């Protein structure tokens, strides 16, 4: 895996990462899973999608039933959080008016990623205009994984990282199955780390010109 870098000068700017086929498959799978979790269609069923997309009413209707109160699944609650924990009425009203739209937006972004990951070749190419929506979708996926990993605080995250480290040889970095108390959790944690690393590299691309602008500002002061 190679993190996102800016495309070579000459063409329109894009962020390009490289994944091997297994990495692509794993990431595409988790992208599709989060899409389903949000009430989206199974990605890859293009015919149904086109019909649904053409009908704005249906698009907004899709998430309506579940929009009346907080979602039962803690992972969904993590990406569609309660907007007013101290005021049930404000929270419910907010959810009723915003949740269908938020669900559609999040599913649309995931679908775009899923399609890009199903292109041929090792490169994952993100046009500059799609970079932030991709970063937002990566955030949603990481929030879902974090929920499944019971990661609620910075300390939880540190404990998970330590657990992953213990399952790897300190010198060679090789995975040591015998050291992993909970292999499934270690695997999910490593997927979380890989997506974090990819999103960091994507943010370096998005913010590539910021530093220069800050320098100019400081010079003015």
């Amino acid at each position: 895996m190679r993190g996102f870098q800016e495309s070579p000068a000459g063409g329109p700017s894009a962020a390009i990462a490289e994944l091997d086929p297994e990495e692509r498959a794993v990431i595409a799978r988790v992208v599709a899973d989060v899409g389903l979790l949000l009430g989206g269609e199974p990605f890859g069923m293009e015919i149904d999608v086109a019909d649904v997309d053409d009908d704005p009413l249906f698009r907004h209707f899709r998430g309506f039933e579940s929009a009346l109160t907080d979602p039962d699944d803690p992972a969904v609650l993590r990406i569609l959080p309660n907007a007013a924990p101290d005021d049930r009425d404000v929270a419910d009203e907010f959810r009723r008016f915003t949740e269908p739209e938020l669900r559609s937006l999040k599913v649309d972004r995931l679908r775009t990623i899923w399609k890009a990951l199903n292109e041929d070749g090792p490169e994952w190419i993100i046009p500059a205009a799609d970079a932030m929506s991709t970063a937002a979708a990566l955030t949603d996926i990481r929030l879902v994984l974090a929920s499944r990993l019971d990661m609620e605080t910075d300390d939880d995250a540190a404990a998970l990282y330590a657990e992953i480290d213990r399952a790897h040889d300190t010198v060679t970095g090789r995975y040591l199955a015998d050291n992993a108390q909970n292999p499934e959790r270690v695997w999910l944690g490593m997927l979380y780390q890989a997506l974090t690393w990819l999103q960091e590299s994507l943010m370096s691309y998005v913010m590539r010109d910021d530093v220069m602008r800050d320098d100019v500002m400081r010079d003015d002061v």
Partner: protein
Amino acid sequence: MSTQPLNASDVDVATRTDDVWVTLVWNDPVNLMSYVTHVFQSYFGWNRVEAERRMREVHELGKTVVSSGAREHMEVDVQAMHSYGLWATLRRSGE
């Protein structure tokens, strides 16, 4: 346009503190510092220095107020933050 002076009680209604709401962004272990900084810059129009200061406030103090005003405006801001996966809430100012 009317030249009638504003009724004092109208002004009071508009500035009563319980009509002012705030949007809060809360810390979570998932959101990246660079990402939160960029969301603050692009959505609220803050420069990099200000956006980073607010991001650090979230990270170190657990939360920060990112906007205040009418409830409807705060709902728009919270919805925008949720679209980015940030943990945002709204409440009456002073609560």
